[in-house]
């Protein structure tokens, strides 16, 4: 695999809050066009890992690259210099120029959804998706106010319409986003993420709170959009069914550290993974 085929490259990322190691020395690669899963029991540090990638947190140590471009590179500084318990503390130099905020990271082409759905509550389904297109528009505040961007606005509206139609959400377009049933809200959140035209889609527990039927549909849906938009998908999940069904490769973490990686069959039969999920019997 050549380097350009790796969309997301995470190297020795450690996130330490005070004395708590939320993520410990995590390294993973997400190759182009694949569906990669990050799984682990509750509190294993999955969402923290996501937040380090999307710029919500700056990791204490480590490197994150997107399509070969370094997004975050950090080493323990300040108070963390003494407190730091992880490894590789001297491997990376800190460069303040490459720690972009979440909006910049989205601009590079990484879109995400949230574990607890975060749609814009006062907006309609249509506006939720349309607003996500704001970032890619070439208008400025004057051209937008004086309607000099009418062409672009029309294009954005048409694209939104098309996107909603594809996701089977067009019939709800004028309803408030929060009035939709749970499963559709999840789907809308994914549609909203797609509206930012991403290369990499990060899904944070997309099947949380869904029944088996909905989960099954969601699995098909994720595979469909992955093919259709030529996406790379990186997801966090609890639902083993979903993960085993759609993932090409799986990373398992527990207490912040990686405990296994491999294709679904390998993970299913890995004793450490089973132990982490079910607990070790005291014999």
């Amino acid at each position, binding site marked *: 695999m050549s380097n350009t085929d790796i969309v997301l490259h995470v190297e020795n990322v450690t996130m330490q809050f005070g004395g708590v190691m939320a993520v410990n020395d995590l390294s993973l690669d997400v190759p182009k066009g694949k569906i990669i899963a990050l799984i682990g029991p509750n509190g294993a540090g999955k969402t923290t890992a996501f937040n380090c990638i*999307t710029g*919500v947190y700056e990791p204490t140590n480590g490197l994150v690259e997107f399509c070969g471009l370094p997004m975050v590179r950090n080493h323990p500084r300040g108070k963390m210099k003494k407190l730091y318990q992880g490894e590789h503390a001297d491997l990376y130099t800190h460069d303040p120029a490459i720690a972009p*905020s*979440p*909006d*910049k990271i*989205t*601009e590079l082409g990484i*879109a*995400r959804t*949230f574990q607890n759905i*975060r*749609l*814009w*509550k*006062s*907006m309609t389904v249509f*506006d939720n998706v*349309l*607003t*996500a*297109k*704001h*970032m*890619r*528009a070439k*208008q400025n*505040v004057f051209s*937008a*106010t*004086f*309607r000099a*961007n009418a062409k672009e*606005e*029309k294009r*954005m*509206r048409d694209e939104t*319409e098309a996107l909603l139609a594809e996701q089977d959400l067009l019939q709800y377009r004028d309803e408030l986003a929060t009035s939709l049933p749970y499963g559709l809200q999840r789907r809308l959140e994914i549609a*909203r*993420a797609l*509206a*930012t035209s991403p290369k990499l889609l990060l899904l944070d527990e997309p099947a949380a709170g869904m029944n088996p039927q909905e989960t099954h549909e969601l699995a098909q849906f994720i595979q469909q959009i992955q093919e259709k938009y030529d996406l790379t998908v990186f997801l966090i999940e609890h639902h083993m069914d979903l993960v085993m069904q759609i993932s090409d490769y799986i990373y398992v973490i527990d207490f912040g550290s990686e405990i296994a990686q491999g294709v679904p069959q390998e993970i299913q039969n890995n004793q450490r993974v089973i132990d982490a999920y079910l607990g070790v019997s005291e014999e």
Partner: protein
Amino acid sequence: MDKTLQKDPAKKIGAAIAVCLIAALYIFLILLDNVLPANGFTLMLIPVLKKGAIYSLICVSMNLLNGFTGLFSLGQAGFLLVGAYAYAIFAIPSDQHAAVYQYFDGGAIGFSIPEALAKVLGENAGAFLGAVICIILAGLVAAVFAALIGIPVLRLKSDYLAIATLGFAEIIRAIFQWNGVGPVTNGSNMLRKYTSFSAIKIGEIKLATAFPFFIAMICIGLIVLLINSSYGRAFKAVRDDEVAAEAMGISLFKHKMLSFVISSFFAGVGGALLAMYQTTIQANAFKSAMTYEILLIVVIGGIGSVSGSCIASFLYIACNEWWLRFLDSGGVTLFGKEITVPFFRDGFRKVVFSVIIMVIVLFFSRGIMGDKELSFAGLVRKLRKKKTAEAAEGGAGK
């Protein structure tokens, strides 16, 4: 989608009604200024209308920030002050400088925009255009102040932002009263003699009341256009969920700054109009109480509703300056008889007002309009539905 909107008859009728109403309003205002006799009624009505229009603009500008972008800022009085002062400083005629800046040797500024324009364009056109240019300048100066204050302040959230902006408003007031900048701001003394509403005329037609309406309407129109644009949606996204907005590529700082600067621009314009209305200004009048008054109107009108803010502005000003005045006067005249009410004395109006506000906050906690807008198209649609429903009922009755 746009095509369906254009074909919507209710929208067309609504727009026609709105245009007719606005035209009727302006005709009425011009009649009020020029033809109608000055009796007790019009003498009360004119100031209420003027101040109501100015407050509408000020409240809508605050609503843009607090209601649409979700930034709880309490700095509005500061930006009003900056706008009012900027307007007055540029609009005082140069031969009046010696009188106005009597403690500062005639001040540091030796020119006046309306005066300079009057020399070129004639007196009336000069005053009109000069006032408009000074108003725009006032907005720009307020916007510059906002941009500078915004850099440190907009990194704060909710309550902390409110405290910081409140503090900055007070700092602005203190600086403007400082004798060190006296040659420009006249220290803690009044600024006066600048172009006021009474100087705004076209030929012989006085526009003293129509002018504030005209400026306020253009500004509110611009704000509405902004709110309904892509940027307006981004502002609402920031208000609804900052984390999600940022994750969808909306730069928080950039959009908060935009909203803050634009809101302050229009607050500056409002301040300039207020200066024109009052004919004299003094920094001491722009206390935080003024911000609370504006905030109150915004809350009564409905946070996130432009038309709500406008309606509430006129209602508040009318109650405060006119309808509830009798409460301060010691008695009421009913059917020609003077009735003395013991409670009615100076300041009782404020007590009644507080009670009304408490009732509104308790029972109409979302304000008059909530976050909805008054739209004539919507009214037409409602009326039509009613009609068709009545027709259907009538048919069934037969």
